[in-house]
């Protein structure tokens, strides 16, 4: 309430805003799929955050007596080709992966949303520039772009997040521009202009909230894509640096041993699937919950 984003705190809005949020929460709680997504995301984040406490062993501790052991009571998820505890590595790997996934998409949203809004609203001057730039970036495949950027920036987890984030920017710009074009024709935009609203209000208070569906879809698709992108970058040595684990690195380093030690690929893979699923479900749930019209399919 005190952190109400809308400048000048809307009158009746203060109360309405709060009850709106409460209603949204209630709707999310009633949506089983969304709740599964929410619980999964919370669990994954907790697991990543508490990795140092939860991990039974140091993820970097090498033990050449226990190479590629099967899952057992001693090592629940087995050990890898250097005898490192797989469970500990999955937990720490999840850390890097979530960090890159969430940070990259956040970065992309922060950069792309204003650009997309501006391109869609200022058709004469901003749009040509932004759209040509977007087209140029889209001409490169997502991964090629990310790899190129990461190579320029130098290998580190943060740079990987930046590289992946930047390569997701054009998609989000496109979506936001389209939404803005569509919504700018609505009567309520004209009514707001006629009421003396300045462009900031039009864009961020009228158009952005109404494009939240499309944006959430981009975000829920973007996070898993970023997690996989990080895997590729790390595989190429452009992401996390050994011995720090990430789910992507684990997956790719498990590849040669797939026949002999399938669990090495199975568990990181399962966690990636779980993360993807969790964010998708949560995104769908949020989309329905944030719609004041409530449940509509």
């Amino acid at each position, binding site marked *: 309430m005190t952190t109400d984003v809308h400048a*000048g705190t*809307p009158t*009746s809005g203060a109360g309405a805003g709060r009850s709106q949020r409460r209603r949204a929460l209630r709707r999310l709680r009633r949506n089983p799929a969304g709740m599964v997504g929410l619980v999964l995301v919370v669990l994954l984040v907790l697991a990543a955050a508490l990795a140092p406490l939860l991990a039974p062993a140091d993820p970097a501790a090498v033990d050449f007596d226990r190479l590629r052991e099967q899952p057992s009571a001693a090592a629940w998820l087995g050990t890898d080709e250097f005898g490192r505890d797989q469970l500990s590595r999955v937990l720490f790997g999840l850390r890097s992966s979530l960090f890159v996934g969430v940070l990259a998409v956040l970065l992309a949203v922060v950069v792309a949303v204003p650009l997309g809004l501006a391109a869609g609203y200022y058709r004469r001057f901003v749009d040509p520039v932004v759209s040509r730039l977007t087209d140029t970036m889209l001409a490169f495949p997502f991964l090629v772009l990310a790899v190129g950027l990461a190579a320029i920036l130098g290998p580190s987890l943060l740079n990987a997040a930046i590289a992946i984030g930047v390569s997701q920017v054009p998609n989000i710009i496109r979506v936001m521009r389209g939404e803005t074009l569509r919504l700018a024709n609505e009567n309520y935009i*004209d*009514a707001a202009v*006629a009421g*003396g609203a*300045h462009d900031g209000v039009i864009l961020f208070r*009228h158009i952005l909230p109404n494009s939240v569906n499309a944006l959430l879809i981009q975000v829920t698709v973007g996070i898993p894509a970023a997690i996989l992108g990080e895997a590729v970058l790390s595989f190429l040595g452009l992401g996390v640096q050994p011995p720090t684990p990430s789910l992507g690195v684990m997956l790719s380093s498990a590849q040669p041993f797939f026949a002999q030690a399938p669990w090495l690929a199975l568990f990181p893979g399962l966690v990636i699937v779980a993360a993807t699923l969790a964010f998708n479900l949560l995104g769908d749930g949020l989309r329905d919950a944030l719609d*004041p019209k409530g449940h509509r399919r």
Partner: protein
Amino acid sequence: MSTTASGTAHEEAAEVEPVLRLTDLSVGFRTEDGPVRATTGVGFDVRPGEVLAVVGESGSGKSVSAMSLLGLLPPSATVTGSATLAGEELVGMPERRLRALRGNEIAMIFQEPMTSLNPVFTVGWQLGEVLREHRGLSRAAARERSRELLELVGIPEAARRLDSYPHQMSGGQRQRVMIAMAVACDPRVLVADEPTTALDVTVQAEILDLLRDLCRRLGTAIVLITHDMGVVADIADRVVVMRDGQVVERGDVRQVLTAPRHEYTATLLAAVPHLGRPRSDGPGAAGADTATGAERPSPAAPEPASGGTEPSPQVVEPGVAEPGVAEPGVAEPGAGEPEVAHEDAATPPTRRGAPVVTTPRAGGRAATADVVDVPPALELRDLVVEYHQVRAVREVSVTVGAGEVVGLVGESGSGKSTVGRCAAGLQRPTSGTVRVAGHDITALSARRLRPLRRDFSIVFQDPASSLNPRMTIGESIAEPLRMHRVSRGAGLRDRVAELLESVSLRADMHVRYPHELSGGQRQRVSIARALALEPKLLIADEPTSALDVSVQANVLRLFVDLQRRLGFACLFISHDLAVVEMLTSHVAVMRRGEIVESGPTGAVLAEPSHEYTRALLAAAPVPDPDEQRRRREARA
């Protein structure tokens, strides 16, 4: 001739077996909030060669009943009761058999001619497809028959038009094509769901003529679903009035329209704006009246009587026919006749050089000479708007004096809305000037214009899209006040409450979202938002055209009331001459981007000097079968 034909047809029909018979038909829907009844125990029948009108307002279940006949309801619907087509039971009929019936025995015409045809196929192809599918005609035979059908529905150069795409045809022509498709297989029953609602009145008259003609010539039974009592009077033989999913009245068209037995029918009829009725002591009665809000006698104009603060203004209070608005039966068929409207035209009918509203270049200056102190609320001079070299508006000049209500009338595509957008500063004219309350806003940048926007605002036609769906209505109304830093905090809250009450909504409704409101309520919110800053000028772009008649009557009454109390000037854009007559003191008639006629409303409507105005007046249907027949004969 048509008189006797229809008379005998009807008498004969009484003995003929009905082709379609509904008995105790109920439709319900399973929803997340439990089962909902759409209709209860609906029953009526239609005989060959007869037009049955099913009348009702939105939510009355009239469309649902019709859709159930064709099995077009969503799977969540449950239908009970009986509907027989030539003795064959339709309820519970297997889908395969229904498919064979649809188009063949029972066909449907929808409201939207724009979206009912597939844009990527030619008209001939689409017509031919129906014939090949249902009749197994060869390609050549189908084409020949398609040409005949287009001729039947009165499309000129039918052979050539077969190769046209839908977008190359006008709305009226497309509706004709839809009708051709519907009658392609000589169906026994034609269900027409608001077939003319999306069309201009002049086109509407032609389509109704066509339907009547087909009905007589082919012996097709027509079930016409409509909300428009004028359309009913024009075409129907018998009428069924529906409300809340039930039939409240049925009978012969003349009886229902002239001597309704059910109270609801009477209220519906009374709510229809009717040309020739005296204006309800209209706002800004005479042209010279330029009183500002302060000077205006405003004895705290009475709120719309009972139940004003109820959340459901669709419920028409019995008081619809309030003093000043004539009783339904009283308003004589002489709609638009000189005598009737004349008393209203207090101003001398100096048409061409009329004050206040001026034809292009007809001395707009001189017009406002007697209003020296107060600049006109709106002054448009030689307005021209071009889209891609096409002139949508050509040299339009309109002046709205302070506190005055001026009507701008025209059909779709006449450019009237474009004029409104220019006046509201939402669109920049190609040339010409726009002055609002003395300020030239034509070339102002958005930044410079913003502070001036306090003086004028706009209300749009479509209640569905004029409010931000993600904002509560309280936030929507508060926005202009916040933007102009008029009030904040508790003061703002109070002002929003006050505004809501002024449009007869409860103050505690401010937390609602637009989708939780009815169309009429949303339009009230739009009006409250537009009036939040007490503007000098309101541009109302068809504010009630999308509403049911009884809701429209309430909203118009509210508008008159507010205008009288607050004294704002208004440019009232409408296609409905009766509404314009009720509200405005002066009127300008637009056609193809030009003003063809203007002057005091009473004079223009009583003695239209331009043939287009006359055509408009003649085409607007009135809820009186005899008057409609007379006009029809005059047309023929």
